[in-house]
C-alpha cells in the first residue's frame, strides 16, 4: 500500500460568525492517487482546501504534508503543494511566462526556464507564453493557473473545481492533463460537483457535506457496495397486475403493463435472478427481453447527501 503524503487530522474551522465550515475532518491521502472530493455547493470543499493550503486559519486539528506540519513547518509543507483555485485569479496585463516565473520564484525555486517550457508545452500554452493573460480564452486561463501551480514542482496538487464553466471538449482536455500529471507521479486532490468527473478520473472518492466527511472509499468499491442493479424484463403480453406468486420479489410493473422492474444487490450472496426467471415461467409469463442497469455515482451521491441531511 502506498504511503500517505497528506494527513488531515480532525481539522476544524468555525468562522467568527459561528458558522462551522469544517467539523472534525480527517483524511489520509496516498502518494500518487487521485482523490475526488465530492459535495454540493457550500459543503466545505473549498474551505477544506483553503485550510490545508494556508488561505484560511483552522480553529482546530492538524495537517501534515510529507510529514511536515502546515503550521509549525509551513515552509516545508507548502513547498510540496500546488493550488489551482476555483476562480480565475490572474493578473490580466501580465504575460503568461512572467506570471509562471513569478510563481516559481515565490515558492523559492531558482529560475529554470527549461522546466517551465516543458510545463507550458504540456499544457499547450507555449505558443501563448508572450501574450498578456487577458487575451486568452477561459480554458487557456485555467491552464495558466495549472501551470502556475506546477511551476514549483509540487508533489500534491489541489484542483478546486477545475472544469467549472468549461465546455465539454475542454473538460475532456483537462481530464487528459490530470491523467498525465498522475502518470508523472503527482498526487491530485480534486473537488467537483460533476459526478461524471469523479467517476472518470478518481481512484478514491470522498463525499463531504455540512463540513463533515460522509465517506471516503475506493471508487470501484463504492460503486460496487452502494450500487444497486436493476433488471428490467419485457413481457411478450402485457399484464394488468403482478401475479400473486411473484409478490415475494418486490417487482414493479410500469403503466403499459409490459415491463417489470426487479431491483437487486450485486453484493448479495444470491441475486435471485435465476429464481425470478423460473418463477416467471411457472406463472406462465413469457419474457421478450431483459436489460440491466447499474446505478451511477450520481445516484449514490444524491442518496448519501439526502441521508446526511435527514440525520
Amino acid at each position, binding site marked *: 500500500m502506498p504511503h500517505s503524503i497528506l494527513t488531515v487530522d480532525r481539522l476544524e474551522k468555525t*468562522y*467568527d460568525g459561528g458558522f462551522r465550515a469544517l467539523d472534525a475532518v480527517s483524511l489520509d491521502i496516498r502518494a500518487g492517487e487521485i482523490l475526488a472530493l465530492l459535495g454540493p455547493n457550500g459543503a466545505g470543499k473549498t474551505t477544506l482546501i483553503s485550510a490545508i*493550503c*494556508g*488561505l*484560511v*486559519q483552522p480553529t482546530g486539528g492538524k495537517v501534515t504534508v510529507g510529514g511536515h506540519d502546515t503550521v509549525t513547518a*509551513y*515552509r*516545508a*509543507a*507548502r*513547498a510540496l*503543494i500546488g*493550488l489551482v*483555485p476555483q*476562480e480565475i*485569479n*490572474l*493578473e*490580466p*496585463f*501580465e504575460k503568461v511566462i*512572467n506570471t509562471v*516565473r*513569478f*510563481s*516559481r*520564484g*515565490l*515558492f*523559492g*525555486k*531558482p529560475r529554470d526556464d527549461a522546466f517551465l517550457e516543458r510545463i507550458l508545452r504540456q499544457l499547450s500554452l507555449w505558443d501563448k507564453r508572450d501574450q498578456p493573460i487577458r487575451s486568452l480564452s477561459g480554458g487557456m486561463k485555467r491552464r495558466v493557473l495549472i501551470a*502556475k501551480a506546477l511551476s514549483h514542482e509540487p508533489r500534491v496538487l489541489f484542483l478546486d473545481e477545475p472544469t467549472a464553466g468549461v465546455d465539454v471538449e475542454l473538460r475532456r482536455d483537462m481530464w487528459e492533463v490530470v491523467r498525465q500529471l498522475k502518470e508523472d507521479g503527482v498526487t491530485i486532490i480534486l473537488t467537483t460537483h460533476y459526478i461524471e468527473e469523479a467517476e472518470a478520473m478518481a481512484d478514491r472518492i470522498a463525499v463531504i457535506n455540512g463540513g463533515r466527511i460522509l465517506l471516503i472509499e475506493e471508487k470501484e468499491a463504492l460503486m460496487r457496495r452502494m450500487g444497486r442493479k436493476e433488471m428490467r424484463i419485457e413481457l411478450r403480453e402485457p399484464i394488468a397486475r403482478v401475479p400473486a406468486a411473484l409478490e415475494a420479489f418486490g417487482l414493479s410493473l410500469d403503466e403499459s403493463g409490459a415491463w417489470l422492474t426487479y431491483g437487486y444487490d450485486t453484493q448479495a450472496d444470491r441475486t435471485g435472478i435465476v429464481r425470478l426467471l423460473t418463477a416467471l415461467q411457472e406463472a406462465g409469463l413469457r419474457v421478450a427481453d431483459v436489460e440491466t442497469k447499474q446505478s451511477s455515482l450520481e445516484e449514490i451521491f444524491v442518496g448519501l447527501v439526502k441521508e446526511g441531511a435527514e440525520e
Partner: protein
Amino acid sequence: MNLTAIAAIYRFEMARTFRTLAQSVISPVLSTSLYFIVFGTAIGSRIDQVEGVSYGAFIVPGLIMLTVLTQSISNASFGIYFPKFIGTVYELLSAPASFFEITAGYVLAAATKALAIGLIILGTAFFFVDLQIQHPVWMVTFLVLTCLSFSLFGFIIGIWAQNFEQLQLVPLLAVTPLVFLGGAFYSISMLPEGWQAVSLFNPVVYLVSGFRWSFFGMADVALGWSILAICGFLMACVVTIGWIFRTGWRLRP
C-alpha cells in the same frame, strides 16, 4: 529566508512600473514642475528670502517630500490591494514565504519607485532654481527612510482597504493636508505662535524639517527629533504589519 520570493515579488512589481512608465513618472514630474512655476516663480518672486534661501529653492525639499510621501503610499497600497482585488493574493498566502518576505518584496518595490521619482524631481528642480545640497549623505538617508516607512504605511492601507474608495481615502484626507500643513511651502517660524505649537503634533513637520536641513543646514525642529520621528514611524509600521500577518487580519479569515 526565502530570498528568491522577495526577488520574485520585487521583479514582478517593478515590471508593472515599467509597463506603466509614462503614467508612473510623467505625472509626478509634471505636477511638481507646475508647483515650481506657480509657487516658485510666480508667487515666489514676490516673497522675500526665507532665512537666506530664495523661496524657489526653499520649497524644493518640501515638494520632493510631498511627492515621495504620496508616491510611497499609493505604490505600496495599490501593490498589495490589487492582488486582493483580483484574487491573486491566494498565491501569496499559500507560498512558503513569511510575512517579512512578502512585505519586503512589495515595500522595497514601492520604495524604489518613490525614490526614483524623488530623485527625478530633484533633477527637475535644478532647471528651475539655483540649488546646493549641504549634506548629501543625510539627504539620501532621509529620502530612503521616508520612502521605506511610508511604503510600509501604504502597505498597511492596502491591506486595510476593502474597496478603491478606501484606498484613496487616507492619502487624500490625511496625508495631503498633513504635508501642506507640515511646512512644505513655508517655515514653521512664519506661523503665529499658537499654530507653531499645533504644528509640532504633525509628524510631517519633522520629516520636512530634517530633509530641508540636509539641503540648507536650517531646520524648524532639532535634527535629532527628525531622525527619531522617522525611525519611530518606521518601527510602528513594522510592528503593525507583524501583527497583521500574525492574526491574519483582512487577509486570512
